[in-house]
């Protein structure tokens, strides 16, 4: 559903991405791995419209989104989480999620001013839906707390819920389990599988191999801005180039 065609990106003189090509298929979980600074997050930034590619094209559902504004891309059905968490800390969990529904709340300025039925109904529905999303991630009991008071792991989950609220077709996750311990990772793995089951396609960046290999149907490996391998987890695990550049010698973690 998402295609990157010959994408390249440079910052000033620094070539960060070079001729990156891959397709993220509908319905599954696609992984992108690679050493630090390989350009993974940059790929996400390009897809979500925060940065513009220096060359190449990005297509989503067959349409070019390379020049579409970030908020419009969200409207088309791509949502993401961030590597360094960006929840709205001074808002409650519920409000965080309702912000995610921004595009789907169709009421006029007039109905806001006059407190009309349409506005009230849509607001109430949004709250209900937000609670439901929070419950998917087992955060509903904290719905009215400020996001600031959440632990790191909980904030990551809140980002999920918020991203889901935009009704994405494709969900981009940037290192979803960074900073979590193995038990928490296992728990999150289940939640991600759940979300996939509900019909969302997922595209994730992650450094935790147990997690990546356990979840992904296909994986691409980025190294110094180039795709050096793409395939099933097993293929990747045994790819000599990937081991040298990224995985290192066999290790259980």
């Amino acid at each position, binding site marked *: 559903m998402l295609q990157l065609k010959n994408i390249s990106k440079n910052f000033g003189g620094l070539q960060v991405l070079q001729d990156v090509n891959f397709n993220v298929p509908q319905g599954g979980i696609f992984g992108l*791995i*690679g*050493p*630090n*600074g390989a350009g993974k997050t940059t790929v996400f930034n390009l897809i979500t419209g925060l940065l513009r590619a220096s060359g190449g094209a990005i297509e989503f559902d067959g349409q070019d989104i390379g020049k579409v504004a970030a908020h419009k891309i969200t409207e088309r059905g791509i949502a993401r989480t961030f*590597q360094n968490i960006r929840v709205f800390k001074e808002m409650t969990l519920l409000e965080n999620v309702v912000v995610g529904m921004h595009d789907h709340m169709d009421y006029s300025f007039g109905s806001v001013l006059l407190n009309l039925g349409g506005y009230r109904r849509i607001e109430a529905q949004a709250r209900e839906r937000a609670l439901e999303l929070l419950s998917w991630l087992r955060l509903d009991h904290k719905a009215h707390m400020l996001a600031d*008071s959440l*632990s*790191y*792991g*909980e904030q990551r989950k809140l980002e999920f819920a918020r991203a889901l609220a935009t009704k994405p077709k494709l969900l981009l996750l940037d*290192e979803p389990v*960074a*900073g*979590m*311990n*193995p*038990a*928490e*990772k*296992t728990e999150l793995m289940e939640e991600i599988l759940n979300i996939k089951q509900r019909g969302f396609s997922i595209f994730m960046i992650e*450094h935790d*191999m147990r997690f990546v290999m356990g979840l992904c149907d296909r994986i691409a490996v980025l190294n110094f801005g180039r795709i050096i391998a793409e395939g099933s987890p097993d293929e990747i695990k045994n790819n000599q180039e990937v081991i040298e*550049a*990224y*995985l*290192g*010698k066999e*290790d*259980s*973690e």
Partner: protein
Amino acid sequence: MTATANSNPATILQVRDLAVSYGHIEAVKGIELDLKQGEITALVGANGAGKSTTLLAISGLLKPQRGQVLLGQQDLTRLAPHKIVQSGVVQVAEGRATLTTLSVAENLALGAYTRQDKENIAKDLDWVYSLFPVLRRRKDGLAGNLSGGEQQMLAIGRALMAKPRVLLLDEPSMGLAPLLVQEIFRIVEEINRTGLTILLVEQNVRQALRIAQHGYVLENGKIVLADSGSNLLNNPKVLEAYLGG
């Protein structure tokens, strides 16, 4: 891990009944820790358990509600943060606190900020460069242009420049690629072999406990388990709660 000959080294840093609060939330609720001279001690626990809070309190960046941190006879909780660094307790904080607008060499020079023995600094710089050759190659570049793993190395190297007696490491492997994670753990062990005492906070529980002589498990601001690293690694409770069964 092999428990080596000197089985009973002296305690260098003691944490006694330490409690720390953020406003009304008590994040650390009276904990005890002992760091033995020349050993790696691991502190593990879930997100929000209070690990970073403990380290920040040891370094004097947070004021504890009660309790003491003793370095030998000296009570660190009475000292200003810069005095604590001067007395030899140095921390590499969570999230790569590199100074991105300074060059790599300047970062390292600042590491030695509190040192009195200026003549040995050059020697230690060489040592750090030999631990992390990439830093020597990038020494005149801005630290902000380093990759995540390189920044982590810089942060550790910079802390070493202070010639610490006790090194506090807060999640040095966070967000790093597998290859680099191994590299970081190798380096931590290597540094430790020079006789440096290390308190290692990690989410990467398995690796941390593997290289640590001692370990503590922190849950909700309290120490719930304390044992040798290898025992903890085989403790069913730890296995279940932190290693995912």
